[in-house]
């Protein structure tokens, strides 16, 4: 067995080591879920079938996306950034395991840990208070696949952002832009189904849609048969493109490190 499963396992352990801190985060995720859900109910009362969602769909979407904030790390960031800034990344690059594979393994462990500790509370709390839309076993399996692909897309995006630190002295501006794109185009502010006209069409084609909106649609059973396959293929396409770009950028970063000494 290679080293990567161990990296994943240790990352999982690390991210489940402080259950109190995670519980605190989950509480805030839940509170925001309630506020967002109430707002969306207000809108769906005025427009009952907006974007093909009914009110239960809208509420479920809300709490599901709150539950996914942690696993998909919608606010961005990766520990790798710190290691690049401090120069510790040189150690990572000279390991016999690939940098990207290592951090992907690490990120999967992180996502799993976050899902385990922060995924439950918003969903349970939401389901207790509001009418909710649960998928069947088949839907759940499809959702698991969509979520895994969503995490891969999220990793692909954040890995590119992290590597940019090799070239940028101050990455805070880039991070801010990334945050805006991520929050807005993933459907966290308003579900993408409620985006009007062309804006909606564009938003649904961007990689951020593959992080949250697509998994949520799969959870709500909005896709079936060929539609489902198409949705998953859309996610897989973005994941492959972003991770491929990350691979090329890793090679460039390694060259830069060798030539410029960091």
């Amino acid at each position: 067995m290679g080293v990567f499963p161990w990296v994943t396992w240790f990352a999982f352990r690390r991210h489940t080591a402080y259950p109190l801190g995670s519980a605190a985060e989950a509480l805030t995720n839940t509170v925001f879920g309630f506020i967002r859900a109430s707002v969306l109910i207000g809108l769906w009362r005025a427009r009952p079938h907006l974007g093909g969602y009914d009110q239960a769909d809208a509420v479920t979407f809300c709490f599901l996306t709150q539950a996914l904030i942690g696993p998909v790390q919608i606010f961005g960031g990766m520990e790798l950034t710190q290691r690049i800034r401090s120069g510790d990344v040189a150690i990572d690059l000279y390991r016999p395991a690939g940098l990207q594979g290592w951090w992907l393994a690490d990120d999967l462990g992180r996502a799993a840990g976050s899902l385990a500790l922060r995924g439950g509370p918003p969903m349970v709390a939401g389901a207790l208070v509001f009418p909710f839309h649960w998928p069947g076993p088949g839907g759940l399996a499809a959702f698991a696949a969509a979520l895994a692909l969503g995490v891969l897309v999220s990793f692909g995006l954040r890995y590119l952002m992290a590597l940019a630190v090799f070239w940028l002295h101050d990455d805070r501006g880039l991070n801010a832009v990334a945050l805006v794109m991520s929050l807005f185009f993933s459907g966290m502010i308003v579900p993408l189904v409620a985006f009007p006209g062309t804006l909606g069409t564009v938003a649904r084609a961007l990689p951020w849609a593959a992080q949250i909106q697509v998994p949520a649609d799969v959870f709500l059973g909005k896709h079936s048969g060929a539609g489902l396959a198409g949705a998953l293929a859309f996610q897989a396409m973005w994941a492959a493109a972003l991770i491929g770009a990350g691979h090329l950028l890793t090679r460039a970063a390694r060259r830069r490190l060798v030539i410029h000494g960091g």
Partner: protein
Amino acid sequence: MYALLAWTWTRAAAQYPVSMLLLSLATAVVGALDAVGIMLLFAHTPRIAGFTAAEVLFLYGTSALAFGISDILLGGAERLGQHVREGTLDALLVRPVSPLVQIATEDFSPRRFGKLLPAALVLGLALPRLDAPWTAGRVAMVPLMVACGTVIFAGLWVLAASLQFVLVDSHGATKSLTYGGAFLTQYPLTLFARDFVRGVTFAVPLAFVNWQPSLYVLDRPDPLGLPDAARFAAPAVAAVVCAVAAVAWRTGLRHYRSTGS
């Protein structure tokens, strides 16, 4: 003292003016997202929970302005738990200035003002579009509610920080109080369940940040049926929140100094 420290930090940040300008803009855009969200909602319907787009944007503007100013003044206090965990609070305690002032001014940068830009802009655009029976009192209420809202949020920042003296890992949860409060007050409380509205009126008095004063400005009935005096209670509520926050801070600091955390 606060101003002196803030100014010194600002000068340090100003050594990279381009970066600072870009960051201010980025902060402004992040702050504007909520307003864009509200406008997207109103692309589908003229009224939500009985309120028009201009009215909700008025709520957004007053809330975001109050929260933005309080964030500039005291937002840094949310890092208290981190200082306790890393032991850096000790270094602040050996200096002759309140650790609250030191933490709040730490890394003070004009980019924090970026948040005020969308808030002020939206408020400026929403005000003339309001269908309010403007009187001198109503006009005066607008700046007054922003001021009181600022003080209430400032109290909440300090309360949230005080909690971290005792529960070091509670930062994630105290964000419900601060950021959650800021998010909530951007919307009319008619959207929310009645018990929830009672909670944010009597327990955590977020309703006095802008909701109660807005009922007066917009001349709307109170869904909870509180007496009219509630609409003018914001200054008193702000004073109470500050008093509670001050006691909490002192208690928290004493707890730290007797346990060393």
